[in-house]
């Protein structure tokens, strides 16, 4: 097995992606605290961190294109870099959702809780776990883990549905909480979207590892089945 200088460059790429993922995971943790503990400091921090994630996206995108152009890679190398190009924007979008939760938190913190904080604690932890696992699946090349994350998305969808129902109930009971509950409906959606991005990352991981595209399985089905 020949040592390649290219391997060092790919390692840099992997490290950069890991740094971005760690940043994003921290943002999710902050977003959970913002909503469950109504903390302004954390809300401001998460909004601020989004700038760092944006900068990481630009830098890594650039590095990826450079490697594709200069090294003209094949096989695993090609799939790895193509995968990076698609995983980076997913992480960036997760950062955006956290920032949005932070912004909304600054409004919600002026008002009383309308929902038992346990709901968003549970939702937030489930979502954060998926994001951590998706990045770990990528870095360790773990197909099983990627598949488990894709399955876990169902649980998050279920929680999303539950919270939505609960908020609706609150609004029907007490129209004075409609404003707060409406904000929370959007926060709920933000968390649910973060889980979708984790799922997307895992689909890319399966592609990188196995060269098989698992997205939108219905496209491969016979429409007459």
């Amino acid at each position, binding site marked *: 097995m020949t040592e390649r200088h290219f391997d060092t460059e790919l390692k840099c790429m992997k490290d950069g992606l890991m740094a971005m993922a760690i940043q994003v995971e921290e943002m999710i943790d902050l977003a959970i605290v913002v909503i469950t503990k109504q903390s302004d400091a954390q809300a401001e921090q998460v909004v601020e961190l989004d700038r760092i994630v944006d900068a990481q996206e630009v830098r890594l995108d650039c590095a990826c294109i450079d490697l594709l152009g200069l090294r003209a890679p094949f096989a695993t190398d090609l799939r790895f870099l193509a995968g990076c190009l698609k995983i980076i924007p997913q992480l960036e979008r997760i950062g955006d959702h956290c920032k949005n939760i932070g912004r909304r938190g600054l409004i919600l913190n002026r008002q009383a809780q309308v929902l038992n904080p346990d709901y968003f604690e549970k939702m937030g932890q489930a979502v954060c776990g998926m994001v951590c696992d998706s990045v770990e699946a990528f870095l360790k090349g773990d197909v099983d883990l990627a598949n488990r994350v894709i399955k876990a998305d169902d649980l998050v969808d279920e929680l999303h549905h539950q919270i939505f129902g609960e908020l609706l109930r609150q609004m029907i009971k007490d129209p004075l909480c409609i404003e707060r509950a409406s904000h929370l409906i959007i926060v709920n959606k933000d968390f649910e979207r973060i889980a979708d991005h984790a799922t997307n990352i895992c689909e890319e991981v399966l592609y990188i590892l196995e060269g098989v595209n698992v997205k939108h399985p*219905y496209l491969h089905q016979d429409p007459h089945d």
Partner: protein
Amino acid sequence: MEIEDPRPIPEPVVLPPPKTEPAWDRAAVAEMELALRVRKLDLWYGAKQALFGIDLDVPKNTVMSLIGPSGCGKSTLLRSLNRMNDLIDGVRIQGQVLLGDQDLYDPKVDVIELRKRMGMVFQKSNPFPKSIYENVAYGLRIHGVKDTRVLDETVERSLVGAGLWDEVKDRLKDSALGLSGGQQQRLCIARALAVKPEVILMDEPCSALDPIATGRVEELIFELKKDFTIVIVTHNMQQAARVSDFTGFFWLGKLIEVGLTKQLFTNPTQRTTEDYITGRFG
């Protein structure tokens, strides 16, 4: 309380399967007519075996590239396809090469006639020390064509086909040796085209050319596959990826993997192929 999702769920849009999906391609390939079939081909140079049980199908009007490290047997295979190995002492061959339905190693085969059906272009362009015109007309003259109108037409058609006509039409009587390397290589391609072969074999045709001349030859290969079937040996994997429909990877005299070029270069099935094309070999 069961709360229904306020958004109606739209019916999924049903699209036909993507056309680049490998399974689709495999089915299409299975239906293609084959120009060339190699079956269980073994070759020895004296006591040393250089090819081991090669099985290879080349569909008509496609480009097959052969890649692999130096000395793995690419040129040997190419030479077996038009029986140029007959010229080398001590070569022993077993197995079959079928051009259409004809077994090339059938003792009844007329080798001169065979070479007309299998053109060959070499790594180093090798024009004869004759005029541009005579270089292209050479193959026809060997086959006894004397009619100058036929010769003129063929020379023009072949030079046009090889993308050289505009550059040489005013100096057909000049020596071919006065052409640039890239022009000489295209002249050799024109010479191969003149006898209207079914298959054109190319052994590293661009290795001595600059990127512009290389680009011309590659464009030409793309044009030529409308009328011919092409087997090209190249050390430039990017070139194999650019010009060919299928790629075969050779190693130590064995065909390790052969498949659609886009499949082999994005997701090869064999570890050795992966190591070779990603430069981890050695």
